């Protein structure tokens, strides 16, 4: 057996000993990494095998044996997702995401998987999906053992207008959890770069968890360009649409703002079919980026706007659409949708906003509305197997159909 991609891809645990204490919300713990830790009691077969395996392979084998793979929850081009159990305690369920070998990256792992592992193993927060461990299986497939979140995602709650009813208090609770997750990422210098309702999964107790770190990266050093082709189009901020190569955590905040808007409207606020249309929608729904409201914007590489210039929309516009969240809520939304990223609110300042303390108080997580039935499970499978950063084909179609019938957007 050749050296497994897993051991290749991960820094060794000795180097990890200095891993920051800060990255773990629960700081009392021995190892903050996702590297395999041998099973407590290696069983007989493992012991027999051990003669033929080197240490890293042995560890990998032990890690693998800790879980039993169950039924398939979903299959995609990028990964398959299985339900799994912990061998020693079958009542504990996990989601096992098996990354398919990608034709484009036959030499190594797909960058999505690397990104996901790299960042998830460092982030430990109640509102971020937990990566329990990583191991490789026989054909050198990479397996991610993730927290199993059975209640679907925010998108199904938003879309199911017929059966799911929620109010401002619920929106506030969900936004609180989302903002905390984003804040935690940013405090740990990680850009998520794909925040959208179907990456917000719901745990059995109602806690919302940010998932899919396939596009995440750590904050860039100065003079080192990043790609601007990230974040699902509907949630992509203007600086990325204009092709910026050096951006900040403000890109995630824009997405958070649009998720907020979507939670209130129960439909995507700016759902463009192409990038040009997306810019157009931002101009109409937020305001046209100009030199006045965003000094220097015309110098961005792909700055293109139509001739029709809409001034930045005022509070009355937002009040008409989002007035249900109250004055403070509208204020917070407007601050997340400021065109100039330097003036946009930060995740930390979002949490300091007075809205959280206004009435109504956020709903407690166990009282949050949830979707009944087995749909959640399927949806989790679908969410985890998806390739990051794309709009669901089938979702776009539905929006188009709605348009045809003149229904609410």
């Amino acid at each position: 057996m050749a050296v497994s991609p897993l051991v290749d891809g991960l820094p060794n645990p000795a180097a990890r000993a200095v891993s920051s204490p800060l990255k773990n919300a629960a700081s009392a713990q021995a190892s903050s990494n996702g590297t395999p830790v041998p099973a407590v009691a290696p069983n007989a077969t493992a012991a027999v095998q051990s003669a033929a395996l080197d240490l890293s392979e042995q560890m990998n084998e032990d890690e693998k044996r800790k879980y039993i793979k169950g039924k398939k929850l979903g299959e995609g081009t990028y990964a398959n997702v299985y339900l799994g159990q912990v061998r020693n305690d079958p009542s504990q369920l996990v989601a096992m995401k098996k990354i398919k070998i990608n034709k484009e990256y036959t030499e190594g792992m797909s960058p999505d998987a690397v990104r996901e592992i790299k960042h998830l193993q460092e982030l430990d927060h109640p509102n971020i999906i937990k990566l329990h461990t990583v191991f490789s299986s026989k054909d050198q497939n990479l397996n991610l053992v993730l927290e199993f979140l059975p209640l679907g995602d925010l998108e199904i709650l938003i879309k199911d207008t017929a059966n799911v009813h929620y109010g401002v208090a619920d929106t506030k609770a969900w936004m609180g959890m989302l903002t905390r997750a984003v804040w935690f990422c940013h405090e740990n210098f990680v850009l998520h770069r794909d925040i959208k309702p179907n990456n917000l999964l719901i745990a059995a107790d109602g806690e919302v968890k940010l998932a899919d770190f396939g596009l995440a990266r750590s904050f860039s050093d100065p003079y080192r360009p990043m790609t601007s082709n990230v974040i699902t189009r509907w949630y992509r901020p203007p600086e990325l649409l204009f092709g910026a190569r050096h951006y900040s955590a403000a890109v995630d905040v824009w997405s958070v703002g649009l998720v907020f808007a979507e939670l209130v409207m129960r439909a995507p606020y700016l759902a463009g079919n192409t990038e040009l249309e997306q810019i157009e929608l931002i101009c109409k729904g937020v305001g046209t980026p100009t030199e006045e409201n965003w000094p220097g914007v015309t110098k961005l590489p792909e700055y293109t706007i139509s001739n029709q210039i809409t001034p930045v929309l005022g509070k009355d516009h937002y009040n008409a659409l989002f007035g249900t969240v109250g004055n403070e809520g509208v204020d917070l939304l407007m601050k997340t949708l400021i065109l100039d990223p330097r003036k946009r609110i930060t995740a930390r300042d979002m949490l300091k906003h007075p809205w959280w303390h206004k009435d109504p108080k956020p709903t407690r997580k166990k009282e949050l509305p949830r979707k009944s039935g087995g749909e959640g499970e399927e949806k989790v499978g679908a969410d985890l197997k998806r390739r990051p950063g794309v709009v669901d084909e089938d979702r776009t179609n539905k929006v188009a159909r709605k348009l045809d019938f003149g229904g609410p957007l």
Partner: protein
Amino acid sequence: MSRKAVTSTVTQPSNAILPSDICPVCKRVRYLNTDMRFLINPECYHAMCSQCVDNIFKSGPAQCPYVSCSKTLRLRGFREAWFGDLSVEREVDIRKRVAAVFNNTQDDFETLRDFNNYLQDVEDLTFALVSGTDEERRKAEAQLVAYEEKNKADIDRNRKKGREVEAARKKREAEAEAASKARRLEEQREEEEARKEEATLNREVMEALARGEAGTAAQIQERILAHKRQRIAQLNAKRTGPTEDEEDRNKPYDPFGATDLDPTRYQIHDTYENSWLDPARTRDDHRVPGYSVQEYVTRAMFEAFAGLGVDIDEEKAGAQRAVGTVGPKHAAQANVTSGALRKAGDDVFG
């Protein structure tokens, strides 16, 4: 009597009493006009009946019909007086007006003394307006207007704040009211129950006797009574203090989820001099799309000091690690979203 009152109001409006039966202007009497109402105008506080007001002012502003009064009044300004004593009415109006302008609260002052001095000044001004001579009144009036002009923004801010405080107070009161009402109802219900229990006592004793239970009638009664007391005690014990669930509900919301990530071992300054970073601060391709040098600096500082917080002995001693969310048993499916999947302390490199 009325005539005298009228003359006195003309010369000294602060001594006027609202007439009750005869209109001082048209001399109509209540005896013939049972629905007579007297109106005043805060310009001069001269009372007249609503019919006079209609007759005189309907067609536009006119002079006050009182002989010695030269004020021009408008229909719009007339209203019913709240107080019978018009001098009180006038004083209250003035105080309202002054309070709307001088609306600072104690929080706006550094010391109690400052606040008290301010209150004293306001009261002096009010007094001059209410019962000063013409000269004093004019001066106070000018002072009031000047202050209002100068502190417009502050006044507006205080007024807004005051409204919020008032709304909060009203809400609190309503809540307290509702709670006490609920308590009263609860008490009533309890009493009712106790009475019912009491009433069944006799019947139960009779039934027990009929069943032929052991002991005398007195003993049986004693037994049943003891049993009842116990039940009542149980009922009462159930309702002591809020339940765990209620306590959880009443906890204040913490947007940060009880997590503090501010660095404790070093401080981040606003600027660090570094010529390598300067272009990143000024170059358009960094500046315009919002690239934040501060984020970079924060990260560099973090990475430089990250090792400071690590105590290997402590970490090794750390027990089993529990992470993620453990869902309540009853939640959706009976499974645990995550738990202590990895045991610590047996790291081969540890």
